[in-house]
């Protein structure tokens, strides 16, 4: 009985295996190396050199034209590089006088957020914050106050939809702080203690301090609003682009001296595993850029 049963199972198994192989050519019949008919043989250094720098699209118009203009500008800004930042800033300063453009940026942010393209939403939020307008900051404040999602996918205990929105709200709070306006500063200070996400609270602290030159007075003004368990964020070490080792290391040393409690414990060992028998070797030199 048992023998007959296993014969049936093994025949059924063979059938399933055959079907599996037939339905899964992806697993067994695939090409050994990847390919594409569209592959380019031009090295990136030449592709990059061909992109014209310092040519942002016009940022102008009203109504639908303003919307189109902002869409194109956000696309350009995402592709732009550090040395084009001033081009964007200059265009934004002029555009700040046009309420239709501010409205169009707000619409673009909401559209990118709804579509789930965080990278585009971050770019658009940054651009609107850089404009330093009352209407723009008002929109950013409303954006920061949007309730965080409560349903979705958890990864290591973090609701991903919540993290995604909080990162965008952190960018928005930086834009509000950049206005350096007393009314909007009150919003930043409120969010320092009240926002439900530590990601936003942390950025609110950092942005408030940075916009006041990281002074002792700014720290004193901020401290009453910071949650007791998050006071460490007031001294958090910030590494900024272009900062050299000497400056950064001095800040880090001061931080570690002031907060010996952040010293991590000694790493713990575990039993060694047997060495691998067939190490993979490969010419690690990548193609010339």
């Amino acid at each position, binding site marked *: 009985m048992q023998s007959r049963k*296993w014969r049936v199972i093994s025949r059924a*198994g*063979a059938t*399933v*295996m055959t079907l599996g192989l037939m339905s899964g*050519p992806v*697993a067994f019949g695939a*090409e050994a190396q*990847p*390919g*594409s008919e569209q*592959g*380019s043989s031009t090295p*990136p250094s030449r*592709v990059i050199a061909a*992109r014209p720098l310092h040519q942002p699209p016009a940022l102008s118009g009203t109504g639908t034209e303003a919307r189109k203009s902002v869409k194109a500008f956000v696309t350009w*800004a*995402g592709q732009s*590089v550090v040395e084009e930042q001033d081009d964007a800033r200059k265009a934004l300063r002029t555009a700040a006088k046009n309420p239709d453009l501010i409205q169009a940026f707000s619409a673009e942010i909401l559209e990118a957020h709804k579509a*789930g*393209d965080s*990278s*585009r939403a*971050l*770019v658009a939020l*940054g651009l609107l914050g850089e404009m330093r307008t009352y209407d723009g900051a008002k929109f950013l404040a409303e954006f920061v106050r949007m309730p965080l999602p409560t349903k979705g996918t958890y*990864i*290591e*205990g973090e609701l*991903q939809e919540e*993290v995604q929105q909080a*990162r965008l709200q*952190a*960018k928005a709070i930086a834009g509000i702080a950049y206005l350096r306006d007393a009314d909007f500063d009150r919003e930043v200070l409120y969010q320092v203690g009240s926002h439900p996400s530590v990601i936003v609270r*942390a*950025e609110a602290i*950092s942005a408030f301090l940075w916009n006041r030159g990281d002074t002792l007075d700014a720290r004193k003004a901020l401290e009453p609003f910071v949650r007791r368990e998050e006071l*460490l964020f007031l001294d958090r*070490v910030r*590494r*900024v*682009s*272009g900062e050299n*080792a000497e400056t950064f290391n001095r800040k*880090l040393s001061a931080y570690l001296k002031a907060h010996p409690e*952040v010293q*991590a414990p*000694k*790493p*713990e060992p*575990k039993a060694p*595993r047997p060495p*691998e*028998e*067939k*190490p993979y070797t*490969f010419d*690690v030199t*990548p*193609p010339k850029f």
Partner: protein
Amino acid sequence: MNLKQGIALMSSLLAFGLSAEAGAVCTQTGASQADRDLWNTHGCWQDFFLWQYKAYGLKSGDWSNRGWSDACNVSLEFPKHWNASYLLTYGMADNFAQSFHGTADYRGTAEAPNSNFHDSLYHGITDRTDVFGTFSPRFWPWDTDKVETACPLYNPNASNSNPASRAGDYMHEGWHANFDKYNIDNGNTGGHRAGPQGACTATGCDYFYFHGISKYVFGAMWENNGTASRFHSPNQVQVEFLCDVSDQSQWWIPLSVRQSAAADANGRAASRFINGPGYSCGSPRPW
């Protein structure tokens, strides 16, 4: 059950499992702006993807309905995978006076060959949505360690579906491999300490082992002296990489990529460390 019957049954289950795995894919409807912007700097560079699949030990069966034969379609997983590799292979500034680490460190952590950074590994992919990636150590000495990246790094509407966050996960998983090479026990919650605890709000937490800039020569990030004074955790390596993409990458790296890197780094630094927060990076100036 005799041996032959056992083999037949196992083969059936294996074939079924393989076909089921191969049939499912992540969302393939598009790519984030950051992915597209980086992609436009190379326009689908064939020499690179023909090198990359070997450098990362990719196996065709894992990637075949994910762009293996359509390697220039940035909506698919394999093109997104090699787009992230391109970022870390060519995109770092390697400024010893300003960067946390250099290309040699990030490549050594991510790539497949056996090195000071880790034993041999290969990159696969999984349809799981409850992880960004996983590291599976070899069971037998003749096996190979496996890094798998998951759909939240590829689905176009996911927060980490951008080249910097994807490459950041190569660092994270690669550092679990580093711990296996150097026999480090970082906890039993998926290779991390159980959380929330301290300043860590996630369920998998690490310590941050603060170090200054220029303290590790490029290529020496793998070094540890068995104490907290010269050591890195997986989340820390990930944060330092993301900060270097944000602040210390090549001039031609698009701002959408840099901003996504900063947002991921700062969020992770605020929420994943018991003795946190870790460093913050990027500028609080909006643009």
